[in-house]
């Protein structure tokens, strides 16, 4: 069976090369049949990658340990769902998933647009083919998931921390996001290569970008929740290089989603949009490089291998290619109009972009710093949490404020007088919130106080926008239906506010106490009293589960257990935390038992009370809803697009 997988990958590689070379020649020479042939090769590359993926999935489900990959990442005890999730638990499988999503997305995007944008898709095919060539080459020549061996009796198993439902969904979501950014990149590159830099590439990829961005956002939140419930340190985001690797392309894509509206309305920021699309794509490949190369220390670097130099070379070559392409086509990317006022919607988008890109680049510098110091000084120096937190506050709080001001500013220009009138309610709401927080004693954290007043400001602006818009159109439904992208965007803004409230609440106002508790001894944290009721040890075939049991009284009465699992295969420990969520109070009681002694019943325990943390997960649901509103197909928009292109489509 491995031979079939290998053969399928070789076929994919051949088809990808064909799409790249023949597709490029066809587009250059303007040859219809050759272009159609290259396009068919791209479709077929998806089918052959699907065959390779099916082979690997079958081997994983069957526990076929003659595959080195299966033996390295699963064992006989692993349930089928987790055995299947080992597809992306290791490096080779992850790369195969990248290729599968890339060829699938590429084939679908080309198929959808092949009639309306025939000249553009002729160039998109070789660009997607070029990216697929790289990934299929790595899978064929450097990191094959189809290497075989004499089958051992059992496999090494999946890292215990990956045996979690969130890990079944989190990596595929991230890959759907990462790879999805290839589509707008390919269309942008296609527009530059063909010299047709009109807005068709933007219209064609609008939903692709939005979908990729949504997947990346949801993927990150799933990862954050996984870290919170599984890694067991009480947090959800540690500025880990690999977490940052997913955040950076998301920030770049966020900037692009905003700035592209300026190009659509005013014909401005064309160069900037090209740069942002290229940046988002390069960062997504760089993210895969960081995750998989082992070049930085991370809890996610499960495997270190030799693919690093290949990825680095690809990032450098594709970055140079993108920059050269933009420079070559600069004359075609001149703005049609100029910024008329510093107090206008387009200016607000520009400020938002500068802040987002600044945040993205400071994070990039933080990620690159250990690599740079290793190269320059021969020693690895890492940048810690204070660096990231400082820049998150520096750029994040103005971004939050701008999220409130931006929607109230008119296109072209706004008068200060009109804007002040529009901002009266939001400013009043922010002031009242600030005063109430200080009065109830929540003024101890300045960043928390600022975040909450800004959040009140933004939520009020969204409410004001909806109320005024509904009055103008007659109904909320009509208002949203008229411009789903805008009002879906406002819902996403609301989710960011919930996220900010959750982050500020759980970090600025959390309580934490660490104690050694003898049997029957108690401790008190933020009104909760926890009493040690002893330690149990449960031995199962592949795992020994040690749990400390604590009775809880106070705002909530019950019991929580926490401890660790020691697995036999793989011989690794896994920390198990105890969490009680109080949805009415909006807080979590989080118990981490660091050490427990079964004989004496003594435990070393850390208890955290994290207010409002659950708003972070609620924000994920609101974010998804807002994205769905913006993504929902719009028949009117499609008709307008066809009407716009009809005169130039032969």
């Amino acid at each position: 069976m491995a031979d079939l997988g290998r053969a399928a990958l070789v076929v994919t590689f051949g088809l990808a090369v064909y799409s790249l070379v023949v597709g490029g020649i066809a587009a250059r020479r303007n040859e219809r049949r050759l272009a159609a042939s290259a396009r068919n090769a791209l479709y077929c590359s998806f089918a052959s990658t699907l065959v390779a993926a099916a082979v690997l999935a079958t081997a994983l489900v069957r526990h076929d340990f003659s595959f080195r990959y299966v033996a390295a990442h699963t064992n006989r005890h692993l349930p089928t769902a987790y055995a299947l999730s080992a597809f992306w638990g290791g490096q080779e499988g992850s790369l195969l998933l990248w290729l599968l999503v890339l060829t699938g997305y590429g084939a679908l995007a080309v198929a959808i647009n092949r009639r309306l944008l025939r000249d553009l898709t002729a160039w998109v095919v070789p660009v997607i083919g070029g990216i697929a060539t790289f990934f299929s080459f790595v899978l064929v020549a450097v990191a094959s998931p189809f290497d075989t061996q004499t089958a051992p009796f059992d496999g090494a198993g999946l890292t215990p921390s990956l045996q979690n439902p969130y890990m079944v969904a989190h990596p595929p979501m991230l890959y759907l996001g990462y790879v999805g950014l290839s589509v707008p990149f390919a269309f942008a590159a296609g527009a530059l290569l063909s010299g047709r830099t009109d807005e068709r590439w933007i219209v064609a990829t609008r939903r692709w970008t939005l979908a990729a961005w949504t997947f990346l956002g949801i993927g990150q939140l799933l990862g954050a929740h996984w870290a919170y419930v599984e890694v067991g340190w009480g947090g959800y985001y540690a500025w880990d290089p690999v977490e940052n690797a997913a955040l950076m392309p998301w920030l770049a894509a966020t900037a692009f989603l905003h700035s592209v509206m300026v190009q659509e309305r005013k014909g401005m920021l064309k160069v900037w949009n090209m740069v942002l699309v290229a940046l988002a794509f390069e960062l997504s490949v760089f993210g895969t490089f960081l995750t998989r190369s082992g070049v930085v220390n991370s809890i996610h670097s499960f495997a270190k291998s030799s693919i690093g130099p290949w990825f680095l070379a690809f990032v450098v070559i594709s970055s140079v290619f993108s920059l050269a392409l933009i420079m070559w086509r600069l004359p075609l990317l001149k703005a049609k109009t100029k910024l008329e006022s510093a107090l206008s919607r387009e200016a607000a988008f520009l400020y938002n972009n500068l802040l987002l890109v600044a945040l993205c680049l400071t994070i990039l510098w933080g990620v690159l710093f250990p690599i740079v110091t290793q190269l320059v000084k021969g020693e690895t120096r890492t940048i810690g949490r204070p660096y990231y937190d400082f820049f998150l506050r520096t750029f994040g709080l103005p971004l939050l404020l701008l999220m409130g001001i931006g929607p109230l500013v008119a296109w072209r220009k706004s008068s200060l007088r009109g804007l002040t009138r529009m901002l009266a309610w939001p400013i009043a709401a922010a002031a009242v919130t600030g005063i109430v927080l200080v009065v109830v004693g929540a003024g101890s954290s300045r960043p928390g106080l600022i975040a909450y007043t800004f959040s009140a400001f933004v939520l009020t602006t969204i409410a004001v926008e909806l109320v005024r818009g509904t009055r103008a159109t007659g109904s909320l439904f009509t208002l949203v239906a008229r411009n789903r992208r805008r009002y879906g965007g406002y819902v996403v803004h609301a989710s960011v506010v919930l996220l900010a409230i959750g982050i500020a609440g759980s970090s600025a106002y959390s309580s934490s106490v660490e104690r050694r508790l003898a049997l029957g001894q108690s401790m008190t944290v933020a009104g909760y009293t926890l009493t040690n009721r002893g330690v149990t040890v449960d031995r199962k075939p592949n795992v020994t589960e040690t749990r400390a049991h604590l009775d809880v009284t106070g705002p909530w009465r019950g019991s929580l257990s926490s401890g660790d699992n020691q697995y036999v295969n793989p011989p690794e420990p896994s920390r198990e935390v105890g969490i009680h969520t109080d949805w009415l109070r909006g807080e979590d009681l989080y118990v981490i038992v660091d050490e427990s002694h079964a004989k004496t019943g003594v435990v070393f325990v850390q208890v955290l009370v994290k207010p409002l943390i659950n708003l972070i997960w609620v924000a994920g649901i609101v974010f998804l809803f807002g994205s769905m509103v913006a993504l929902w197909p719009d028949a009117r928009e499609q008709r307008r697009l066809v009407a716009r292109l009809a005169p130039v489509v032969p």
Partner: protein
Amino acid sequence: MIVIGLVLVAAVVVLVALPFLREPVATDDRLDAPTDADARRLALIEERDHALAALKELEFDHRTGKVDDADYRELVGPLRQAAAVALRSLDPPQE
């Protein structure tokens, strides 16, 4: 497995060659790309759409109070003019 592999390869070869198998000799093998004239027309269509969208947006901003009467009066004239120019450029009056 070998048979499946061979079938896969054969199917791929046929599909990739299909445009040439269907049309061994093409009367016109040019990709139907827009000409320069098409591209100019597309640019004009984009200008028209920008102008009309800007006008529509201004009306909406005025109705929702983002743009007051004085600003509206100042902005609406040039926008209407731009929209009219864009429309005229697309459909020049017949002689």
